[in-house]
């Protein structure tokens, strides 16, 4: 008969683990609580603002300025957003334009970004290891550049009288060309303002390096034997790319689509510097709208309501994308 002796005290290892846990909890917890507070508080305040007609210029009630001259309006802001009439208040019409422009911007940026980065990543991955790093660095450098600098540079390229683009076109045409790529409201192609296309090009130029490195890493993770097997079976490069690589990259493609979409929804600085929402509101995206109403016109309640709607928009779009692009590939 084996009698199992009950341990009278915990083992050395358990005591050490417990001590470590207590140490970590006591040191890290205050900081975590501190950081959580300062992350959650502005979020909660921002959500609460959406239900008030709030301006920092007016003195409100005792609690965070709510109430008093900053009255509670409930769902009034959200109800106003559903007024689709030419007589709707200016901020409502601008909100509708903002939603349209933001969606258009994302719809242009995401496919263009993927069309450029995926083949480029494949090409870079196929060159000699010695020069791969050089190409990766080249294409990643714009990502590191400040957006304001990128915007100023592209403004120079698009300048109507002194810009590089018009100079090149002028050289071919043999005369001075003065197209205002970012400022002519009459320049529209297929219903899409040229101004927003111009900004999309600038934005994608800066952003494509980011997705490129993600795709390069994902391509490196694809087992070589799968491509070798395909080659043995007679597949050419195009077939390997379309039948092997892309299907196996689907999870990565899904990730980059979601990240690029979220990033496109958040576009602000490049548009503010290049066009500030013009010409004629053709590039006035939601975030610019929020900034103007919150900080220029101090209608923070309305701006907070638009922010909330924007959050729900991004959330919904991300959910839809996750559903559509989910794959069950495994290798």
């Amino acid at each position, binding site marked *: 008969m084996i009698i199992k002796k009950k341990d009278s005290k915990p083992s050395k290892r358990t005591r050490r683990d417990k001590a470590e846990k207590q140490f970590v909890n006591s040191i890290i917890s205050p900081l975590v609580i501190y950081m959580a507070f300062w992350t959650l508080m502005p979020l909660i305040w921002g959500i609460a603002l959406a239900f008030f007609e709030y301006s920092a210029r007016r003195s409100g009630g005792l609690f965070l300025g709510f109430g008093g001259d900053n009255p509670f309006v409930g769902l009034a802001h959200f109800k106003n957003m559903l007024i689709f009439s030419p007589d709707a208040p200016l901020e409502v019409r601008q909100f509708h334009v903002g939603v349209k422009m933001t969606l258009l911007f994302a719809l242009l940026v995401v496919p263009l970004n993927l069309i450029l980065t995926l083949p480029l990543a494949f090409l870079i991955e196929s060159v000699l290891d010695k020069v791969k790093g050089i190409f990766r660095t080249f294409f990643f450098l714009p990502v590191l550049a400040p957006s304001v600098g990128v915007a100023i540079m592209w403004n120079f390229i698009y300048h109507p009288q002194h810009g590089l683009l018009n100079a090149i076109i002028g050289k071919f045409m043999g005369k001075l060309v*003065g197209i205002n790529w970012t400022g002519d409201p009459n320049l529209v192609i297929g219903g899409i303002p040229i101004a927003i296309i111009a900004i999309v090009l600038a934005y994608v130029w800066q952003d494509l390096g980011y997705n490129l490195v993600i795709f390069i890493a994902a391509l490196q993770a694809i087992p070589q034997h799968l491509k070798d097997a395909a080659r043995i079976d007679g597949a050419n490069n195009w077939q390997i790319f379309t039948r092997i690589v892309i299907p196996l990259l689907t999870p990565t493609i899904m990730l980059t689509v979601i990240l690029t979409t979220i990033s496109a929804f958040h576009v602000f600085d490049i548009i503010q510097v290049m066009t500030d929402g013009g010409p004629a509101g053709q590039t006035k995206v939601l975030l610019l709208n929020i900034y103007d109403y919150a900080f220029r016109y101090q209608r923070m309640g309305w701006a907070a309501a638009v922010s909330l709607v924007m959050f729900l928009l991004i959330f919904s779009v991300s959910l839809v994308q996750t559903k559509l692009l989910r794959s069950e590939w495994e290798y």
Partner: protein
Amino acid sequence: MKKKFLLITTILISTSLILSACGGAAAPSESAAPAGKKTTVKIWTHQNTAFLSGYSALADKYMKLHPDIEIIIESFDYDTFIQTLQTSLPAKTEADILTLFGSWVCSYSEGGYLATVPESVITVPEAEEKFFNSAIGGYACDGRLYGIPQEFNIEYGAVLVNTNLAKEAGVAVDGWADWDEFIVDAKKLTVVQDGVMTRAGFNFTGSDGIATMFHSLYLQYGGQYLTDGTYTVNTPEGKKTLELMKRLVDEGLVDPILFNDEENWVGDSYFAETSAIGLVGPWAVPEYSGDYPEVADATVYVPLPSVGAEPVFAAASGWGMSVSVNSKVQDVAWDFVKFVTLDADNALEWNIASGTLPALKEETTGEKAAELVEKFPFFEPFLDLLQYGVFEGHFPDRDFVWYEVTYPRVLEFLQGISTSDETLETIQTEVRGSF
């Protein structure tokens, strides 16, 4: 027991960290300082090198006269300044003295953030007597004064003219009797190459230029756009205003698609000599003279023609000083404000340092005017014009009316996207909606 102790310690540390962060900026300075201790007065202003040099010099002068008082000036980048005001005023952490743009003052005073000017400093009738109408207008809210102006903000009335370009084109720079004469001269200064305007004869299509020109011309045509809080521009006067502005475009003086706030902005364009005549305030000359000294030297201001009997123009109340209602040293603060704004010598010293036109009437005549003109010769045509300035009026949000409504709508009209009727109706509706 040990667990409970750890938990309580964690909560206490977290709470103290949070509360210490909530503490915010230091409380306003004490009022009656104990003997030997200085009374501190803090001033907030936006970053403008010329403005700051003026404030610093006067602060030093004041502190020499009052060794028991210390003045601290803090400045912020413009956008940050506005946001700092918005957050600090409700939190009661603002400075004692706030330098504000006149158009903002009433909205802050309605929020209960600003102290009224004591009658011992100046009364409302006295202020209306001493200062130009448009300069003091923004500081008087519901019959009370909430600050004192330092400068006359003028964005219409006279234009920058490049005398070198004028000479090359054979244009005499001695004023214009009417708009017909002006158009003839400005046309000579316009350069178009292969159908592309490479130099505007008259660049007026910046946001301040368009909005102020629109409202000024409306007044000159005999209209009143703001009556008893009701904004009206969809009238025959409004139509005439837009017609004149469109005529300047149709005559080829400026291409509003190539020249506007976003492209070839008037200040940049004028000093880069891609505009020969520019509608922008005199503050632009000291601002750009460092980088474009030749153009600055060749620049004169010339009054624009008027369509009315008098060259009236709409003007915002410019920068001035207000005192926070939460300041614990209001007496000292107002004393300093009085020293800077109401002492004619000190006020002039600040105007010269900052390159701004004076808000005080007495600075535009006699020796003081001569001193101003000696330093800034291009001020001379303005000194006679200032009397015609009319305060633009109290809007709930003047910047919204100017930059979100008037400028984009009039620009779209000038670019041929909308008609004059549509433009006037839209501006009127959108501005009324902001009330």
